[in-house]
């Protein structure tokens, strides 16, 4: 209990106070300089939008979150498989790794319309963008984890005449798990960004719209209060996915932390 109070006081309270101060300062500045509301809304206006539009905003969050999480899951699965293949052959790794970097550097905004054409309107296009943006950190980290096993541990497996499969499953995979966690943490934020960028170009048809669509449309219409509400929710969504990933990782992998 004491521990809980201390955590609240030292870790939870300070950022909350900081954000309260920031919001207060924001309101004061807007009042003071008479900033037009289409340039920057008052905090109260944003709050009112959040309350008034809660149902459609919630639905948008839900759709964006879904696309981000599915894209992230796809990244974990595909990134892990690619890293596993990379870890087994230097030639394959050296031949294909530069093209994995391509995924990191490709201007996603430029190719998103292309992806829409390929995957069609609706969720799969958005998931594809979220996937492309979030897969590289997983490939990179897991490959690093699988190929950075200390030589002495490999020799232990040599001594016991381990098969390639045994070496992979009992040495390289467990050694790479903390690296996977690092990768997924980085990717969790990217998957949300990917989903939002995807939604700029693709809607969900009759199912409604995501936060990305909302951001684009409200920006075009100078509905700044709604725009701010959507941006805040996008950020919270990213933070939430990051927190869930970190929590799960902490629970599952505590024994790997000693590495």
């Amino acid at each position, binding site marked *: 209990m004491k521990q809980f109070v201390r955590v609240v006081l030292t870790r939870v309270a300070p950022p909350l106070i900081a954000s309260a101060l920031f919001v207060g300062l924001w309101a004061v500045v807007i009042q003071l300089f008479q900033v037009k509301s289409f340039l920057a809304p008052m905090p109260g206006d944003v709050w009112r939008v959040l309350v008034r539009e809660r149902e459609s905003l919630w639905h948008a969050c839900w759709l964006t979150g879904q696309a981000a999480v599915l894209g992230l899951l796809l990244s974990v699965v595909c990134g892990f498989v690619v890293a596993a293949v990379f870890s087994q052959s230097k030639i394959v790794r050296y031949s294909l790794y530069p093209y994995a970097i391509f995924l990191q550097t490709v201007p996603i905004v430029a190719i998103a319309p292309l992806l829409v054409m390929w995957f069609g309107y609706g969720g799969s296009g958005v998931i594809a963008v979220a996937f492309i943006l979030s897969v590289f950190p997983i490939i990179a980290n897991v490959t690093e984890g699988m190929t950075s096993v200390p030589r*002495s*541990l490999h020799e232990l*497996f*040599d*001594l016991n005449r381990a098969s390639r499969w045994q070496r992979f499953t*009992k040495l390289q995979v*467990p050694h790479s798990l903390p690296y996977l966690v690092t990768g997924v943490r980085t990717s969790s934020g990217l998957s949300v960004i990917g989903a939002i960028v995807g939604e700029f170009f693709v809607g969900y048809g009759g199912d409604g719209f995501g936060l990305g669509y909302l951001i684009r449309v409200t920006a075009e219409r100078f509905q700044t209060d709604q725009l701010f509400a959507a941006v805040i929710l996008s950020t919270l969504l990213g933070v939430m996915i990051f927190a869930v990933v970190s929590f799960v990782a902490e629970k599952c992998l505590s*024994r*790997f932390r000693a590495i």
Partner: protein
Amino acid sequence: MTSTSRRIIAQRLGVTFPDGQTTLSELDFRGEPGEFVSILGPSGCGKSTFLRCVAGLQEPTTGTLLCEDDEAAASRIAFVFQDPNLLPWRNVHQNVGLPLELERQSSEQIAVRASDAIQLVGLEQNDSSKLPHMLSGGMRMRVSLARALVTDPHVLLLDEPFAALDEISRQMLNEELLRLWQQQGWTTLFVTHNVTEAVFLSQRVIVMSRRPATIIDEFAIDFDQPRDAELRGTPAFAETTRRVSAALRGAMS
């Protein structure tokens, strides 16, 4: 656990690394079945390389190496590394059982034999579920030793296993190792920097030259078995240690 120990015969053994560095040259060595031999020599002279050749971790460039009994049956060789080299995500029991797991033994077999090995090296059964980072350096080394012994090896190779331990842990593990050797009778090669340790443990101490290494001196150590901690305090022990140290100094200069 019963072992029929094997002899180790190295003839004109040489190792040259790809960078042209010749580490061993013309090394002749014979280890008799069940013999405990320590190897001393200047740092980086190739003691470990020799041990790695015997273990099969290093291919000799020249010469031959045999590790067999009279019927020339293959040997089970176990190797204890300088570091405990434990898998940090596996607990003690799982670490010790690893070699059996890699041999695809049944899980019942692994459970029984790993428990036996853990007991053999003086660890408590309730340490079995601990992770390596929860153990002291000495305990980790014991786990490493248990992992080597779990396969019931014919030949045991140890590469400066206790170098990183404090003096008392080292002495205790030396005594433990000697007790186990008497019980199990492996043919044992022990690489070390520590003359006292070498003299205390071995039946024979060999001294290697600087690189490219070859054997330049050899001492039979004929103190009675079983040896105990008292032995280290006797004048005869001090005299032997002095002679071996002098030879080692000669090798270094």
